[in-house]
């Protein structure tokens, strides 16, 4: 039944398109598919997709650097820790919902409101810390010693920056309202 309704809408739409063909720009419509969602509900989807793009692009940047410069001398393997901690921070930040921290969610959860705040606090500290550490690695490990190949340092920095902003987008880009 859903398909027949959408077919009816599609036919109406085609007739209307023929009527307004005089100005060809008038018949261009955005978001013309049969899904009846508005931009409010789309916000969460867009935020999730954007966060996914940022997060995984960060990881693929460091994979690229690790594959191009596999030896320890050009790219010290301990620098990977920064990205790992940033990922842990991403998971911690997004494990608690904003509602649980504010105290207005339906269930208390395992650790309650104060536990949620402490968890979020530690998560954000790790996130900021890994971002700062990536800048330190870039400048202290590559720029200042004037290493011949700086790309691994830049890759570490961009990995952590992307993961950090991906975490922010995933956390704050989505709304938790049950009704728009």
């Amino acid at each position: 039944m859903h398909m027949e309704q959408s077919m009816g809408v599609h036919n109406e739409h085609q007739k209307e398109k023929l009527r307004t063909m005089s100005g060809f720009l008038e018949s261009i419509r955005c978001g013309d598919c049969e899904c009846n969602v508005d931009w409010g509900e789309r916000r969460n989807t867009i935020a999730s997709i954007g966060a996914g793009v940022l997060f995984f692009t960060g990881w693929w940047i460091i994979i690229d650097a690790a594959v191009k410069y596999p030896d320890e001398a050009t790219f010290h393997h301990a620098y990977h820790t920064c990205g790992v901690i940033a990922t842990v921070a991403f998971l911690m930040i997004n494990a608690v919902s904003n509602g649980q921290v504010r105290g207005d969610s339906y269930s208390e959860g395992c650790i309650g409101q104060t536990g949620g705040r402490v968890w979020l606090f530690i998560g954000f500290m790790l996130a900021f810390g890994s971002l700062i550490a990536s800048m330190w690695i870039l400048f202290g490990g590559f720029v200042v010693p004037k290493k011949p190949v700086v790309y691994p340092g830049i890759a570490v920095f961009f990995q952590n920056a992307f993961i950090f902003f991906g975490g922010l987008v995933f956390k704050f880009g989505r709304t938790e309202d049950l009704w728009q």
Partner: protein
Amino acid sequence: MAGIKALVGLSFFGAIGLTFLLLSCALDQYGVYWPLFVLFFYVLSPIPTFISRRLSDDSDVASNACRELAYFFTTGIVVSAFGLPIILARVALIQWGACGLVMASNAVIFFTILGFFLVFGGGDDFSWEQW
């Protein structure tokens, strides 16, 4: 019936996408079969959405954490399918022409999968008896 036409159209584009992928491996000037690893990502990409649709039946709420997590992982799988050929080309395991063909294949296949979800999976009553 629109369902059959959409199905045939989607399978055509799927075949085109896989053709691009096989071209990137099998053309004379390329010859290596590393690009076939993106098939792994193609197969994996609809799975988070299937899992989230199966697990939660409250699709009328505006925010649904499970669905958003599924979109996050699906985006990650798509990004990985684009990232892998670039990495392979950067270390000269495949040539840049093959990389370009794999990216074209990615685009076509992921649009096909998205088309499947839009045409056959959309709506609140997602069930396995859509056919």
